[in-house]
């Protein structure tokens, strides 16, 4: 089902969900750069069109290209029974695969500022109150963690399938949240410098504080419900 509930009328090709993109390349297939569910300028003034175009068509695209190249090498190593070769590819797979997963999820959990609606009720609103106290407290806690990432990485709101709670987390570089921590990603915030340098220069806190206004909370709630269902909690 298309999870971009905040987007206005979309052509069919961009209605594909992140989940659909990320499961779309079985052995021998190629991963694709997903289309954005909005124009490059849609997230202004929080993130500029210039940043969105660079970030999507250059950075994310490079991860996709390099992931496909790494997977070809992996296929060859597996076919040849080359265990050492398989292991040697782990770094490139984590980096490029993680980059593709993270950015695909990221584009989907953003929406135009006009579409903003605070997650104060419903399943997500209740979960936020339960785990953080209120929306402002959640933002404060996650902002602090995310701003404090050393070097390149991501801040996340994640669902913990063991405890049934939601929590903030961070990962370094392109390490993907679920494979690294077991938390199911609900909302990601990219804090690699390329995500904000054009618009905010070195002032990462301004970017992180602003990005809460363009999170697509409907998508976050849909991911929460899917994660709860998958964990057998609902």
């Amino acid at each position: 089902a298309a999870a971009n509930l905040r987007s206005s009328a979309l052509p069919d090709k961009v209605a594909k969900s992140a989940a659909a993109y990320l499961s779309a390349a079985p052995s021998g297939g190629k991963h694709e750069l997903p289309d954005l569910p909005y124009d490059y300028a849609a997230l202004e003034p929080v993130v500029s069109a210039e940043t969105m175009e660079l970030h999507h068509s250059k950075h994310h695209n490079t991860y996709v290209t390099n992931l496909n190249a790494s997977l070809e090498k992996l296929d060859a190593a597996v076919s040849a029974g080359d265990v050492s070769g398989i292991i040697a590819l782990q770094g490139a797979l984590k980096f490029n695969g993680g980059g593709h997963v993270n950015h695909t999820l990221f584009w989907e959990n953003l929406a135009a500022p006009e579409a903003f609606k605070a997650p104060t009720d419903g399943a997500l609103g209740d979960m936020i109150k339960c785990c953080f106290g209120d929306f402002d407290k959640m933002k404060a806690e996650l902002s602090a963690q995310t701003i404090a990432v050393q070097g390149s990485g991501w801040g996340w709101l994640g669902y913990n399938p063991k405890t049934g709670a939601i929590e903030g987390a961070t990962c370094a570089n392109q390490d993907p949240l679920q494979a690294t921590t077991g938390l199911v990603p609900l909302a990601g915030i990219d804090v690699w410098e390329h995500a904000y340098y054009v618009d905010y220069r070195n002032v990462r806190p301004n970017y992180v504080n602003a990005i809460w206004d363009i999170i697509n909370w409907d998508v976050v709630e849909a991911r929460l419900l899917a994660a709860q269902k998958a964990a057998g909690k609902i």
Partner: protein
Amino acid sequence: MTSSSSRFLVTILLSMTTLRGDAKQFELPPLPYGYDALEPMISANTLTYHHDKHHAKYVNTMNSMIKGQSELESMETIEEILVHAHEQGNTGLFNNAAQSWNHEFYWNCMTPPSKSSSISEPPKNSQLSKMIQQSFGSYEEFVTQFTTAGNTAFGSGWAWLCYSIPQQKLIVTKTIGAGTPLTENSSSKAKVVIPILTMDVWEHAYYLDYQNARPTYTQTFLTKLVNWDFVGRNLKEAIEVGKDEL
């Protein structure tokens, strides 16, 4: 163990002493050239943000972490502080001290580019040039290894050319985040590695000028911007330190 093994690299990089004011705080060293001196390869805009914001913040944060800690305040150099922080597992202090050191070293590794279109290299027949040939087989191989190190640091990091004391030759390494080869040297044992050249590949180092095209930046850095005199002097001192160690 010789007496010099407990000595830090105070003699190295003499041109980059970061001064302590009366308040026992380190000062942000000025760039060794004007903000527009590296144009068009690195813009004045980049250097302004990189030096006045990023580097400055590391120095200020390090100072605030040192303040009032008499053991740290008695250390003469940033190198001592970062090695101490590393050994104590004090990640916050390490990150800020190491990044303070790394950036100062980086500014000194660069010099205004020549106006000609030729590639800048170490002087022929210099100790540095010969050591590069011996260590890598050819100058081209060194360029390949160094730029590859910079291009494949996954995330924020640094590429380094170091003198390996046990091998008595040059090696290329890369570090992640604030990492530095200085931590390969423990304060209680003989030194193993001495950095002689570094290149910053955190995105803030090149994003305004090159955007995502990191390989263009790394190639440009190595072929146009390196201060080979500085690198050559660092090598000379590294070899001296190595002789003391062995």
